[in-house]
């Protein structure tokens, strides 16, 4: 019987070919009455249009959230969400927070102990004492 084939599914490598921004939606919530939302309202009035124009790949929604702190909620392609409370922040600080959410991958924060992680194996393979030129002492 000749060679048979095994089934496999290729794995995504975002950024190797096309890059898909992982943040897919940003929800801006504000309160009309409370003073903690003053910066948020100013941000929505003056900065949000430019921010949305600069980031067309993100769906942006604005909605009131009465009697609550103003928040920005980022939804990501991996299904996770990140929420930042922007209570009492001015519009520039809120812009920074929005950019933070935009640049985030949506992954849980974790410590990387190894600087490089790769799916490809090393060019020179894995060292084996049984191969190559034998070392003579």
């Amino acid at each position: 019987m000749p060679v048979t084939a095994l089934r496999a599914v290729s794995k995504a490598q975002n950024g190797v070919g096309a890059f898909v921004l992982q943040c897919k939606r940003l929800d801006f919530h504000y309160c009309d009455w409370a003073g903690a939302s003053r910066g948020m309202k100013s941000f929505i009035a003056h900065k949000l249009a430019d921010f949305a124009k600069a980031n067309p790949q993100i769906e942006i929604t604005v909605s009131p959230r009465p009697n609550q702190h103003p928040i920005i909620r980022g939804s990501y392609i991996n299904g996770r969400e990140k929420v930042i409370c922007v209570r009492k922040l001015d519009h520039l600080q809120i812009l920074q927070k929005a950019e933070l959410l935009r640049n985030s991958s949506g992954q849980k924060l974790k410590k990387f102990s190894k600087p490089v992680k790769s799916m490809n194996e090393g060019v020179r393979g894995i060292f084996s004492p049984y191969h190559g030129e034998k070392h003579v002492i």
Partner: protein
Amino acid sequence: MKRIRCSSSLCDQFLSSSRQIVPRPRITVTAKGPLLTSHTRALSTTPVRSQYYEKPINPYEPAPGEPLPRARNPLNSAKLAALHARLSLHPSYPIQTLARALIDQSADPIRFYNNSSLAYLGNSLLGYYGAEHFMCTYPRLPTLVLKSAMAAFVGPRPLAAIGREWGVETAFEPTPDVDAGLLQFKRLPPGTTVKGHLRPARSEGVPEEEAMANFVRATFAGVYLHEGVAASRQFFRQHVMSRKLDVDQLFNFVQPTRELSRLCAREGFTPPVARLISETGRMSRSPVFIVGVYSGQECLGQGHGASMDEARIRAAVNALKGWYLYSPANPVDLPSKMDVDPAASFAPAMIDVGEVIV
């Protein structure tokens, strides 16, 4: 699900205003007419299609004269605009085609409004580009492995994964009031068998994976129709071929030593001989043997194992993989290069005699 309807006066007001604001879609070729229909349908309040065919009964369809909900208009969907930008589609790719690509056959049975024709075209293109890539890169790949490698890139599972990685969400039910940026298909009841002859008809519903794969195919067809051949090749390279697959992990040999011996006889090489390159711990609990298969002076492949037999068989497997995974040194031109520029120079691919028959 609660159906939300705009009041007719509000909606009329919106429709009239949007007619003024909305630019005409940038399609001028009349042959591409059906692509326009999604746009026409969303904006017009009068049924335009009754003159072409009998309208089938669709429970999700608003009655004639009843305006479509504002959400269904592709130009109002923030999700669609975001998806368009996320995929870096050219402005010549209309939002309306993207909206049509999101409507599965199970959500709308009329072929002018669903993505079935686009998905068919997209599937053919993906198969063509996938096949030419593997046949030119690995000209000796056995047929079954070639099919498996193609399925790993352009099969339903990887395509559905691509759709999810593009951030496309699915609508719970394909009612007319859902956002045009959601994937619309009819879900199968839980526990339905989807394989074999027990699979229900498409109108009964489809699995999410199938609907998502069809969306990706339809999107790809849209790139081909609106942006051209060169753009569709680039889109394929960037979104499909950029994925990672170890082609050498797709082989499963049943009689590798026999197959290698047949190969050497066919090609006129000296019959292969297994030779022990190095070993350790022969009398221990965990020995390691390194065996190489030699044809004359040339080592064809090496294998390791806890027994000589294992190492010998693995060496034969690696030698056969070395044969089948041959790739030309100079990059060959893919046939689709000529679709872009028929006058370009072309280096033909190598054609192999075929796999070893044992």
